């Protein structure tokens, strides 16, 4: 970003530049945010700075499920109330949020941190697959739920995991793929509809 350094004080132009790196923030928004903070009380600005610093300093990956956590093992993995025989495999930490919101799932998670995407050069070694397999070794886990996204890469990853996990004798399930609630049949694509038909249930 071009900020005229001769007319703007260095701390201001530097913050504008940093804001400008964020997604969805253009040069004008970056300037507005910077001048807003300049007028804010010192306490609020310090709180923001702390929050940002803590993001990296206090967070790490859970050594068990590889979710982002501020304590190791994370709250979910430590929780004795939860069902430790089930592992739900997700692509990204953010995918855990909607699953937790349902309040239907009481098992554990495993975060892969990506999906297999051959044309981007992302293979199994770039994902946390070895870690998943080693969790299955002690025989505690009886079910692995594959909750990767229902798109091409997600399906590829699920099929690949199925190949690796099946020989271990663990039950493997995949999240049902069908029509989203509140949608129109008219707009459904053939893959979704075929899956929905395959997975239809007695009422």
């Amino acid at each position: 970003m071009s900020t005229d350094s001769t007319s703007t004080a260095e701390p201001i132009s530097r913050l504008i530049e940093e804001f400008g790196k964020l997604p969805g923030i253009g040069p004008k928004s970056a300037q507005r945010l910077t001048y807003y903070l300049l007028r804010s009380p010192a306490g609020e600005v310090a709180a923001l700075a702390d929050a940002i610093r803590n993001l990296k300093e206090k967070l790490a990956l859970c050594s068990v499920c590889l979710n982002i956590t501020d304590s190791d093992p994370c709250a979910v993995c430590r929780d004795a109330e939860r069902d430790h025989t089930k592992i739900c495999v997700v692509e990204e930490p953010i995918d855990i949020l909607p699953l937790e919101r349902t309040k239907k799932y009481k098992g554990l998670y495993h975060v892969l941190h990506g999906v297999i995407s051959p044309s981007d050069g992302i293979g199994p070694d770039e994902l946390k697959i070895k870690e998943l397999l080693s969790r299955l070794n002690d025989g505690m886990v009886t079910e692995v739920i594959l909750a990767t996204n229902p798109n091409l890469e997600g399906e590829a990853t699920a099929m690949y995991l199925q190949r690796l996990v099946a020989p271990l004798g663990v039950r493997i399930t995949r999240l049902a793929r069908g029509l989203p609630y509140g949608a129109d049949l008219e707009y459904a694509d053939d893959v979704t509809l075929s899956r929905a038909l395959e997975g239809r249930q007695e009422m």
Partner: protein
Amino acid sequence: MTSPRTYQTEAIVIKRIKLGEADRILTIYTPSFGKLKAVAKGTRRPKSKLGGHVELLTHSRLMLARGRNLDIITQAQTIDNFLPIKDDLDRLSRGLYMAELVDSFTGEHIEDRHLFDLLLETLKQLSQPTYCEPILRYFELNLLDHLGYRPQLQHCTECNSPLNPETNFFSPKMGGILCHQCGFKEPMSRPLSLNALKVLRLWQNCNFAAVLKVKINRELAAELEQVMREYIKYLLEKQLKSTAWLDRLKTESGQV
């Protein structure tokens, strides 16, 4: 305004990358406009009406609106989703390799109906429950042929002498076969068995029906794959990324 604001086309989706919160930029291959990039808005939301119609390796009919920079997909209807490819990890991976191959070898907005037809036909063949390596090789050979990189398989590319029925050499640099004598002098060439040469010659001049009639063993299939891979690598000056994945799948499933 000279051109209409919207237009319709068939397309095969060969690449897609995320854009912003819920959008994607698709790379599509069309019969009349060649390779195009277009924005598919909201396709990452569950209720997107485009959603599955613009998934990778899907043949769809699209309506596009001209945008300032990239065109925007406004409607999509699947023609063939090649479900058998998507339900099988090995076929799917090969399909993705084909898509990367087409993407690497083509420029945008260059009409090439023949290439579109070849891609479509190959995806249809890949959906059939047959041994798929020959299909892939046939696709590579014909793609190169059509783009002007047809390997010279009839006589030595160095001394022009006819080839003896023996192990000759393939040279990516020369774009074809070197005879026994010339091959030894060229360090960048690799030996090519007589059977491999015969199969390549046949595939260069036949249709899919004939391709599937030729029975080749795993050893020969591996040799043919290597020859083509080295040639493609030389032409593109890079290894296609999805080849690493194809190799891995083969090693893990016990194929050579």
